[in-house]
């Protein structure tokens, strides 16, 4: 009993420390925004990183925690992005945006936050409909079906006949956007917190049971169809929200960018971070975006060549990036975090073992 109390006290202490660290992170972003010029690439990385972290965590909820291998994420992001954009373009700007479609069919606007939530709901609604026939499929078949769905959605949104709503294959623009990095961090942070709460709830445990052994889960009274549907719908809800965030971040969107390549990027983040680790997905997302957008940029700069052979040239960054990813997958087969979460207790444990090893090392000398 005493022991249990002690453990409870300790976990309480650690969660307080984690909360403080989280607040410190937000404060850091605030400070950075105040001192670094807003055009700096750092903010691009932070914003996009936060958006991708959210969609990666939502994909992890499905792939890592429920064991459903789905590749429809880009499609749901597209739904979210378009929902947000379509319903928030100011009436005055509609004639300009929908110039080929006489100002479009929708002649009202919604408040930004309502549209943001609606973006998630629309994605979730479509996920629910698609989930009905598709979630009976297993592993690869489910992946193919969802991938096909994402491609179909993209094609439909580019279709001219629906242009009065979707503006066909033209850009959507002039909708309200947020420039503050803090906004992206806040929305993404809240959503990830909700997903974390879900994963640690009784429903999250049921999801994990389905992942570990479907037959046993069903025999223990867990309704497979219902729980898979729940996981799929919720995952898509957050993918939709992250799509809306992406629309804000880019200031213009077009259906053609939501290709399957985008889903693969997200999948890559999930795999690198560790399938079944929320903090892994977040970490990997920022690392991934930083590498692809910032840290490896210099490799594209032909002026930096010192060797007689022109190795550095536009596009070389992607070659190196691929090699880096291959190395990560080779040496960290379960991703950076595996199935573990980044926690204060974990770090302290790590430090303790390091100290013991250091003591042993000193004694040996």
């Amino acid at each position, binding site marked *: 009993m005493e022991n249990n109390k002690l453990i409870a006290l300790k976990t309480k202490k650690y969660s307080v420390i984690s909360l403080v660290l989280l607040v410190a992170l937000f404060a850091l972003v605030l400070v950075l925004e105040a001192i670094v010029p807003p055009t700096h690439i750092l903010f691009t990385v932070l914003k996009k990183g936060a958006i991708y972290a959210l969609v990666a965590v939502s994909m992890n909820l499905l792939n890592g925690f429920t064991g459903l291998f789905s590749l429809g994420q880009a499609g749901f992001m597209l739904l979210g992005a378009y929902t947000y954009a379509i319903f928030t373009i100011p009436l005055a700007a509609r004639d300009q945006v929908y110039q080929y479609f006489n100002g479009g069919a929708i002649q009202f606007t919604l408040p930004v936050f309502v549209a943001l939530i609606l973006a998630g709901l629309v994605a979730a609604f479509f996920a629910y409909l698609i989930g009905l026939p598709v979630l009976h499929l297993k592993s690869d078949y489910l992946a193919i079906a969802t991938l096909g769905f994402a491609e179909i959605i993209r094609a439909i949104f580019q279709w001219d006949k629906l242009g009065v709503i979707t503006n066909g294959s033209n850009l959507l623009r002039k909708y309200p956007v947020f420039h503050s990095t803090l906004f992206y961090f806040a929305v993404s942070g809240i959503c990830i917190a909700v997903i974390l709460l879900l994963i640690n*709830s*009784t429903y999250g445990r049921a999801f994990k049971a389905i992942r570990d*052994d479907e037959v046993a*889960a069903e025999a223990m*009274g867990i*309704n497979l169809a219902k729980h898979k549907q729940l996981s799929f719908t919720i995952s898509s809800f957050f993918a939709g929200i992250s799509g809306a965030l992406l629309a804000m971040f880019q200031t213009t969107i077009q259906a053609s960018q939501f290709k399957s390549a985008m889903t693969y990027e997200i999948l890559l983040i999930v795999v690198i971070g560790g399938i079944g680790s929320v903090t892994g997905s977040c970490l990997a997302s920022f690392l991934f975006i930083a590498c692809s957008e910032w840290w490896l940029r210099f490799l594209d700069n032909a002026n930096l060549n010192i060797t007689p052979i022109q190795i550095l040239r536009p596009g070389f960054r992607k070659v190196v990036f691929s090699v880096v990813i291959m190395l990560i997958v080779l040496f960290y087969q379960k991703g950076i975090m595996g199935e573990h979460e980044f926690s204060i207790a974990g770090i302290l444990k790590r430090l303790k073992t390091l100290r013991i090893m250091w003591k042993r090392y000193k004694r040996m000398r």
Partner: protein
Amino acid sequence: MAEHVLEMKNITMQFGGVVAVNDLSLEVNKGEIISLIGPNGAGKTTAFNVITGVYAPTNGAVYFNGKEIVENYPSGKMKKNYAGTNMGAFTKRIEPTPDIITKLGIARTFQNIRLWKSQTVFTNVLIAKHMTRTSNIFTATFRLNYKEERKQREETEELLKILGLDQVKDELCTSLPYGLQRRLEIARALATNPSLLLLDEPAAGMNPQETADLTDFIHRIRDEFHLTVFMIEHHMDLVMDISDRIYVLNFGALIAHGTPEEIQNNPEVISAYLGESED
């Protein structure tokens, strides 16, 4: 009929051209320990899968506490190929999924252990309590169900204590020795508050000492949780020791049924099953 906890009525299960279970009828009464025995491939596990809703039977019905829970009849292609008997005796189609059967109060264990491998002993049992929840996904996510959650955790602790698993509750379930893993599977089944427990070869892979312990264990949980136990088993010592009545299956068909003494002296059983194993 009311006193039967479980009644299988003319169950036939046909896979393609193979009749795995043929016209199986049996009754299990309240508080009994009943064994289902038979050589490998006799259709014992298939019978369990029909009761628990994993398979819908080709023909026949299952009653639980007098209430019909499963019924089916051949149709479509199967109508033409049906090789069993009692064609036309059943006309309804009741095909519940396993989770519905479990909610009615029938819990089971598996022949090859099926624990949730990434979870601890405690969580394995706690997840089985998920079924009893009254919370929906919103109240659960935002912890508005904390009272229920606390109650579930307390019940789990208590159950583990009764079954002697509280010492290992925080260990990963795969790190347990084999006997304890079996015991954990039973604990997990008990967490769903069943009135009928189906055990699929609970003593498989156990040494004689563990098997002897299991006999006491099954008696104990039967009395403590007011259970009826229906089990498949190959260990004849255990079966003869523990069973109130025994059903014997061979090639999908029921060949004998009675008390352990009757079964031991039944020439048909001896030739089909016990005789062979003694050679």
